[in-house]
Structure formats: C-alpha cells, structure tokens
C-alpha cells in the first residue's frame, strides 16, 4: 500500500516535472495592454499602475482582520545594500533589485529562481527596480547601462550605455514602459551636467528620442541639472508621460544661473512617442537647496471644487503640496504640508517665490525643510474613497552655507541637517488641510505608503516597524518589527486567492498575509481538535 502511494507520488512528480518546463516557458510574458489595467495578481509597473496612486483594489486584508496578519515568507539577499526598490510581479514571479543585482523570486514561496549580478563602478546609492515589456526586463546600472534581460533566466538580451559615468552620471531608476518605448532617466548632481530622459526600442535598444531638461553645459547664464532619477506616470487618454526633474547645478550657488532655471525642479508633461514637451511647471524656480521635484506625479481623476478634473498631485521635496490640471499644467492648489521658511508667498502661476535672503550664504541660512526635504523618493498614496493624499512627511530644519571659495561647480557649498522627524500626513487634496497625522519617530522613517480599498494604509516607522493604519483616522491597527526602517514603498498582490503585502528592511524582503490553514491544522479541525 505504502509502496503504491510512493509510486503514485513519483508519477505525479514526474508529470509535474515534465509539465513544469513548457508552462514555465510560456509564462513571464507581460502583454503591454495589461499595463493599462493591471490584474490583481500582478504589479507590473514600478508604481503598480500608470497613475502612481499606489492604491490597490484588493480587500481581503481589512481593518477588522489585519490584527491577524503574519509572515508568509521572507527573502534574504545576504548582502549589505538596502532594498530601495519596488518589486514587479508578473506571472507569479517577483523581480526586485539593489545596485548591480536583480533577483527573481517565487511570489508564493519566496524562494529564489535566479539572481543576476554585474559588478560595476559608479554611485551605488540605491536602486528602484526593473521594468518589463513582454518577456524582457530592463535594468539601469550605476555605470549608466540600460540592460535588457530575459525574464525567464536573467540572460542578457542587449546592453546599451546611455550616459558617461566618468562625467559624473549614474543611474538608479526603474524605467517606464509605454507602448513600445522604454523610458529611462539619469542621476548626477555632483557635476554640472544636463539631465535627460531617453526612450529606447524594447527589442533593439536603439534610441528613439531624448528630451533634455536644460540647455547644454557651458551655455552662458543657464543652468545645468534637472536629473530624471525617479519613474514617472502616464495618462493613456492624453498620451502624456509626467516626470519630475531634479535640482539645478551648481547646487547651492545660483549666481551663475540667474532666473528660474527651467526645467529643473519641475513637473514636465512629455509625449512618449516623440519626446516633445507639452508643458512644464516649476515647483521650485531657481532652487538653491537641492530639492529635486522627482516625487511621484500622482494622477487622479475626480472633482476639484465641484468640477470634474484630470489632476496631477505632488507632495514635493521643497515642502509644498501641488495640485495641477494635468491637461494644461495650470495650478489648482499650492500649499505647504509642513514647516517651510524659504519663500515669499506664491506667484500667479501657483509657484512658490524663492526668498533671495534664504539662498545659502557664507554665515549660514536657517532653512526648513532640510536637504532631504519634506519628503523624498519613497512614494505617497492617494486613497480615492476618502480623497486623502497620504505621504511620509519629514518636518525638518538645517543650515545652508555657500561662499565664493566654494566655487560654481557641483555642490558649491555645504549644508547641515539639524533636526527632523517622520510623520504620516493625510492631506485633503481639495484644500491642502491635514485631516490626520501619525508620528513615526525622530529622524524620519523613509518608508513609502500603500493604500487599499478595504481602508488600510501600509507604511513604516522610524524604528523599523511595518505599520498598518486605518486610512480613515490614521490609528495603528497592526505592526511588526522588521529590524531596520523600510527604505522602499510597499506593494500588494493576490495570488491563489491570498492577498500578500510586501515590505522590505535592510536586505530582506518580507511577505505578509493572513494565516492560511496548513494540511495539519485542517486535519486536526476535521478530527474536532
């Protein structure tokens, strides 16, 4: 009897083994049409969908049952770099990164399928993740290569260098896929370099177009900079991508770049087929504090003051929350969401007016927020039911210095943070009023935010806990210590009827889910135990 059972097990395994190959080969193929309406069992884009809302329709995990949330699995990368990426999930496989490394991990079990490692020179400050088109992944590297890989096994499809690391460029961002365009951006504000976006052919890697943020380096009285180091969003109806650009260079000394310095510290709308600019809105004209405007341009379709609008919202690093009409780029609302002391009111276009007396000076200027900003690259979330824009805010103060001896190249000054803390703020997008706030601890947390239709807000605190908050009032419903503060933005997906929430801490990825009956527990239940 036992023998027969084993024999049948062998047969089943053999069948599974034989079947595994072809099924596996058919999988890991992302239909670009799915990007327009991602299924619940996927997270196929950096932000989950094109809108950047980081709001999920999933509702298995609720405010009522979240207290039971427990660890489904953890994946240990066994290396020193912190996970700062958002995983992609396609056909049951997660793809996530740190600089030089990609892991493909089974989303059900958390075991490794393959690992790609390519040591490189250049800035290894962080990495945001990969993009996917059909069966190909797209990965940026510290030495500014865009590498296309086969999602099945991590083998290299093509490899194009798109900026020169010896000039001071590097890249950390997750590219954006729109139709047959792979759109990638660059980092590099330690040198006076032009920021740009470049679109690549997914099959060949050939350049389709390039959009430059600023005039060429060396143009008199003009700025350089405007790095494009975070992933943008996309409106398929308007066929426009929305992208945030980084600070101007030289960074802390604005004298050689008088005026507004377009399009640095801006939100720009670009046609993904041609690379042509539709409009640009500068959230920090003539920035001298390193406040990149690369935070997610969140796309929301809803009423604004009683009128239906296609809006774009950004909680910007400079301390202001912006609501724009994303058809025209016109301002609807500009309001600070924490202490700011660097502007002289708001101009007619809705832009903060920089106070010349708050530019860095030889004897120091006291500035709020600090250089890390009121928020940074980790994503906020928009909850459509409550109309709340929920952001990990960082009220903070610092001192900024610049003197002639600091020159006009690269950083060109020095700045020092004094104090800061982390607060989750729920902003009413129609007024900018903060409906609730939730303290996260000294220094700040750095975690991104995810909301779900069931009314949960997932984020992390300054001590290393992952938190599940009630979206309606910000109260903590569940938490678990992960060991180190989360430096990424959470994601969620549902597989085989089970909803998972993914968070990271240090080099470990954690998958949380409601407890699932095991065969043993089912058996004991059946016996009435």
């Amino acid at each position: 009897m036992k023998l027969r059972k084993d024999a049948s097990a062998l047969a089943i395994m053999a069948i599974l083994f034989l079947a595994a190959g072809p099924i596996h080969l058919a999988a890991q193929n992302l239909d670009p049409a799915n990007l327009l309406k991602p299924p619940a069992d996927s997270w196929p884009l950096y932000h989950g969908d094109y809108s950047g809302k980081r709001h999920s329709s999933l509702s298995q995990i609720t405010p009522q049952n979240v207290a039971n949330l427990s660890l489904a699995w953890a994946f240990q990368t066994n290396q020193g770099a912190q996970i700062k990426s958002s995983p992609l999930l396609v056909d049951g496989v997660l793809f996530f990164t740190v600089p030089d490394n990609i892991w493909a991990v089974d989303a059900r079990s958390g075991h490794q399928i393959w690992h790609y490692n390519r040591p490189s020179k250049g800035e290894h400050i962080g990495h945001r993740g990969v993009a996917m088109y059909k069966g190909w992944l797209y990965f940026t590297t510290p030495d500014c290569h865009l590498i296309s890989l086969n999602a099945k096994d991590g083998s290299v499809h093509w490899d194009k260098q798109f900026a020169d690391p010896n000039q001071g460029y590097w890249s950390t961002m997750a590219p954006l896929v729109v139709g047959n365009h792979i759109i990638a951006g660059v980092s590099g504000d330690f040198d006076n370099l032009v920021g740009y976006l470049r679109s690549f052919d997914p099959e060949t890697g050939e350049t389709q177009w390039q959009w430059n943020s600023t005039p060429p380096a060396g143009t008199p009285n003009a700025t350089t900079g405007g790095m494009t180091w975070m992933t943008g969003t996309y409106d398929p109806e308007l066929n426009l991508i929305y992208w945030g650009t980084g600070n101007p260079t030289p960074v802390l000394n604005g004298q050689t770049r008088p005026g507004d310095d377009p399009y640095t510290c801006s939100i720009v709308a670009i046609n993904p087929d041609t690379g042509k600019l539709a409009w640009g809105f500068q959230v920090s004209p003539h920035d001298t504090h390193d406040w990149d405007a690369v935070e997610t341009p969140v796309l929301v379709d809803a009423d604004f003051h009683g009128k239906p609008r296609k809006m774009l919202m950004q909680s910007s690093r400079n301390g202001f929350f912006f609501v724009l009409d994303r058809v025209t780029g016109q301002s609807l609302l500009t309001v600070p969401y924490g202490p700011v002391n660097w502007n002289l009111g708001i101009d007619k276009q809705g832009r903060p007016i920089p106070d010349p007396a708050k530019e860095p000076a030889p004897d120091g200027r006291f500035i709020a927020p600090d250089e890390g900003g009121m928020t940074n690259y980790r994503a906020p979330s928009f909850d459509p039911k409550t109309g709340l824009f929920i952001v990990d805010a960082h009220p903070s103060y610092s001192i900024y210095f610049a003197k002639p001896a600091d020159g006009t190249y690269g950083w060109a000054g020095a700045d020092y943070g004094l104090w800061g803390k982390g607060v989750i703020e729920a902003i009413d997008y129609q007024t900018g009023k903060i409906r609730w706030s939730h303290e996260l601890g000294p220094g700040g947390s750095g975690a991104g935010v995810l909301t779900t239709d069931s009314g949960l807000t997932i984020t992390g605190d300054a001590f290393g806990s992952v938190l599940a908050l009630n979206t309606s009032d910000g109260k903590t419903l569940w938490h678990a210590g992960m060991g180190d503060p989360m430096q990424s933005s959470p994601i969620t997906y549902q597989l085989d009827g089970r909803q998972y929430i993914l968070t990271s801490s240090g080099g470990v990825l954690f998958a949380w889910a409601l407890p699932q009956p095991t065969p043993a527990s089912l058996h004991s239940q059946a016996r009435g135990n």
Partner: protein
Amino acid sequence: MKRLRDVAILTPLIACLAFYLAQAPIQAASKAATPTQTAQPASTQDSPGSKSYSTNCAICHGDNREGILPAFPPLLGIQHHLTDPQISEIIQKGKDRMPGFPDIKGDEMSSLLHYLASADPSAATAVPGAKSTSQSSGLADAGGALFLQNCAFCHGRDTMGGESGPDLTRSKVVLADVNGDQISQVVHEGRPEKKMPAFNFSAPEMQSLVAFIHARAALAASNPGGRRGVDVSDLQTGNAEAGKQYFTGAGGCSQCHSPTGDLAGVAKRFEGLELEQRMLYPRGARSKVTVTLPSGQQMNGTLAYLDEFVVALRDAKGTYHSWQIANVKYNVNSPVEAHVNQFSKYTDADIHNLMAYLQTLR
C-alpha cells in the same frame, strides 16, 4: 529503501536545478576583469613572481594587485595582515569563491610571495603632498572606486561633502586617524544618530578606503583655497550684545541655561560650526522618563527607547528595563524639545547674534 527512492525522485529535480543554474548569468567576472593597459616598471614585470601573478591572479585581483572591488579584494599591502604561510595556504586551497591553485608550489610559490610583498610600483606617482604612509596610491585608487560606490553620495566624490554627509578632509575622525584605527571603527559601526549606516567591508577593502581618504585629506591640506565647508571666521557676522538680549529675552535660552553655569567656557569646548549646531539642536541630549507599572510602582531613569509600542529606560544603576506601552503609563521629560519649539521663531540674524554671544563665553 525509502531514502533511496527519495533520491531517485530528487535526481531529476537536481538536474533541473542544475540546468537553471547553468542558464543563469555567470557573475560578470570575466567582463569586469578586462585587463587595464597600465604597464608595470620593468624591474618587477620580468620577475618570475610577477609572471606567476599575471598568469594566475591578475584576472581577478587586477594587473597591479589593485583588486576589482567590491567583488575581488586588492592584494597590495597584503603582507601587513597575512603571513606568508597564511597566504600560501589560501593560494593552494582557495578561500570562499577563490579557487585553489595546488600547482603553485616550491620556487614558484616563493617568488609569488616575494612579488606579493613587494612595494606598489605606482606609489612613485603618489598624489602630490600626500603624507608618506604605508598606504600606496594603487591602494588609494582601489579605495577610490569603493568610496565612489558606497560613500560619495553623502560625502561627495572628492570626500569634501555631498548630500547630507560632512567634508571628510576636515573631519576630526580623519585627522586623528592613524592607519585606519578611527575611520574603520566609524565605517564598521556607522553613526546611527546621524543616519550613517554601518558598512561591512573586508580588511583589504577598509585598508584601501582609508588610503583613499587620507590621500584626499592630504591633497586638500596642500591646497587650502577652494575648499568647501565652514570656517570659524565665517561665523562672525553677529552682534554679541543683541545675542545676549536674545538669550535672556525672546530666545528663552536663560530659562534652562546660564552663562556662568552649564555654558561657562562653552566657547573653549566648542567652536565654529560644531558650536552652532549644538546651539541650535544638541544631538544626543538625554530625556528623563517615569514609568508607572500596573502595581502602582514607579520607575525613573533615562529614556532609552520609545516608539508606539514599547518604552524603555536605563535606571540609576545602568540597567535597561522595557515595557509594552499598553501595560504601563509613562511621562517623558525632554528639555531639548525647547530647541525644537524655537525653530519656527528664529531669524537668521537671531542665530548669528546668539552665536556671537556664545563665542564670548570663554
């Protein structure tokens, strides 16, 4: 019998796994290790040890022993932390990912060890003005690559300050460091209170990093113009009398501090930027906490930890105690919060005046 059957079941799975591993990309060692074209001086280039090195070692450890970090450590200066018997054992048996080279023995091993212990030929072209230390420029170059990958974002590519990290060429830690004794501690342990992470570098990596930082500090010291950062002389624009009025008046400083008490001689203890930073917000200031247990017993001490869920203190004897917040009541007394409350009230002139006043407290 059962075990054997399991093996039979496992075999195809292992084969499958092996197939997958074979398909996985080979760690790009061969690509990354593309030899550079730097020529070696003839004297070492022709030695048997050098030839053995070129044949067996250079592919991973670099043509000039500079390493290819982070994957492959530099071997320059290896004689400072490994003995010849240790080195030859590693060569013969391998270590971690490094394969063993059992065929290297006898005369070849001796000449290779001799070569590995030889000075860095590129040291002759060291950074002008660099201190003459045991660290060589080849090592500093290797450290430079490591620095760029791990440190440059915060401390700047030239070590002179970047996003949120200070200028290391002015750092007290760097200036006091001798062959890495101070730097390596900070790097290995991090500075959590300043958000600097800890880095787990190997000894050779750390050695190269230290060499690079010292080379940069020496270069900066030899070229005093054009440095970024804040000098004491930059912070002398305030009015001490106005600062004194602010101290006792609008600033509210005198509610907690006294120029003849805790702040007597403060300008002798701190100066320049450090004094200004401490004046605005003294990092690491302690708070007191009283915790009331369900029994009614009260515990007093220094606040050691506080998040939403747990409160902890260190008592007078130095013992750490912690409680779930749901189980106790607690009351924190945090005088440093007065500094935070002042932030929204300062003008830049207030700060400069206050700074001028504090600098009179010698």
